[in-house]
């Protein structure tokens, strides 16, 4: 287009375009030729209207672009941009027919200082994770006290792995370290990290560390991918996230069960110190010995006390028996025939010792013996 023939062909019957026709046409041309895009510039002449719409211009050294951001779009932003602020604006270039003005209808506005495009993606993914409850503090699992199999998902030749191996070799060499190599930056990083996280399920490890050493925001970005964060959240075992340096907090850190500021700190968080465990073990050993000694001593004491009580009981029982015997003795004494003889009775017995009880037994002239209280007297029945 632009050739005179085309313009004439498009002309109205009056032979000239109306303003509306031209603006409408410009409007269509601009929107067809410029899809929604990100524009970077400096905010100038910002004005917030009663209606809630924002009007301002984006400028650089050579040009300026009028912008409007409607209330429905700017409502989501935490604050309006300040004068002179460097921003990213996402919007549709268009023509404002009524004023014949070329402008940008802005849908999204980000300060470049806060991370711009990166921040947009981060915040969107974070909101999605929060919606699914994946950022709840209650989801965080406790790390195992004595992990014997520890997985590490990181670059096989990065400093992070070296640091982790060094710390674990010093603190907790009794464990087995299972390295799942993965690219931690670049195009394949997202796929490789997710794939390694999925592989955890088959490896029967106690805990996993995912991370990398420091780097630029772009280098660390894979750890802000929603897919990677979701794979961390889906892990069957507790995950420690250690990405970059202390100040870099990624989505991966937010969903992990534990966030370590550095890979070395992750290795420390994952493991106990063997010297401490040994000391605790020896203390348990001592308590074990003391426990049994105390228990045995108590049993001995109990036995001694039981013995004392037993002897006491026996003694008391014997005493009672003695008393009873004495009583029986007195009784027996009372019944003794000697006692009866003492009262003047006598017993007659023949030579065989049989007691003579009736007259018929005393045949005339029978010799017999008479037992009286103090002895026997020989006697004889009278001849009749």
């Amino acid at each position, binding site marked *: 287009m632009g050739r005179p023939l085309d313009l004439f062909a498009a002309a109205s019957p009056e032979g000239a375009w109306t303003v509306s026709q031209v603006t409408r046409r410009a409007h269509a041309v601009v929107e067809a030729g410029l899809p929604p895009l990100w524009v970077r510039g400096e905010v100038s002449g910002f004005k917030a209207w009663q209606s809630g719409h924002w009007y301002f211009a984006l400028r650089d050294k050579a040009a300026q672009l009028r912008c409007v951001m409607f209330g429905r779009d700017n409502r989501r932003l935490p604050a309006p941009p300040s004068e002179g602020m460097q921003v990213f604006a996402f919007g549709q270039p268009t023509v404002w027919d009524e004023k014949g003005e070329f402008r940008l209808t802005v849908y999204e506005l980000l300060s470049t200082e806060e991370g711009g495009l990166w921040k947009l993606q981060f915040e969107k993914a974070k909101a999605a994770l929060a919606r699914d409850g994946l950022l709840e503090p209650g989801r965080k699992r406790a790390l*195992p*006290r*004595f992990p*014997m199999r520890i997985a590490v998902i990181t670059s*096989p030749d990065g400093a992070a792995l070296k640091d982790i*191996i060094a710390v*674990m*070799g010093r603190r*907790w*060499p*009794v*464990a*087995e*370290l*299972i*390295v*799942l*190599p993965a690219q931690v930056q670049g195009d394949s990083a997202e796929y*490789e990290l997710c*794939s*390694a996280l*999925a*592989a955890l399920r*088959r*490896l029967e490890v106690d805990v996993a560390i995912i991370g990398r050493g420091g780097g630029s925001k772009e280098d660390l970005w894979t750890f802000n991918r929603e897919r990677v964060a979701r794979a961390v959240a889906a892990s069957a075992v507790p995950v420690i996230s250690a990405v970059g340096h202390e100040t870099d907090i990624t989505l991966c850190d937010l969903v992990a069960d534990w966030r370590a500021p550095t890979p070395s700190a992750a290795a420390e968080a994952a493991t106990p110190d*063997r010297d401490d*465990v*040994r000391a*605790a*073990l020896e203390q*348990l*050993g001592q*308590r*074990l010995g003391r*426990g*049994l000694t*105390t*228990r*045995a001593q*108590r*049993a001995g004491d109990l036995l001694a006390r039981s013995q004392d009580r037993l002897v006491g009981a026996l003694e008391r029982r014997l005493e009672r028996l003695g008393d009873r015997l004495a009583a029986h003795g007195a009784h027996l004494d009372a019944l003794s025939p000697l006692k009866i003889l003492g009262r003047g009775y006598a017993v007659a017995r023949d030579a065989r010792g049989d007691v003579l009880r009736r007259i018929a037994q005393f045949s005339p002239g029978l010799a017999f013996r008479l037992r009286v209280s103090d002895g026997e007297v020989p006697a004889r029945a009278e001849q009749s």
Partner: protein
Amino acid sequence: MAASSANPQDLAAQLERLEQIVRRLEAPDLDLDEALKLFEEGVERLRAARERLAQAELKVKKVLEHLDR
């Protein structure tokens, strides 16, 4: 041995059971017979745990098969 005698490799289980044994052994109402049994088990677990802690060097293994999916 008690029902909780897990995989001897499982140091966590060993130590937890050992702690449990010591606590039981320190309880005042324990039968002497049981105390002896617990002591014997404790000594055995102590030995196993010491052995487990003796591994001198961290084993490092690289797993590559997860990328072949």
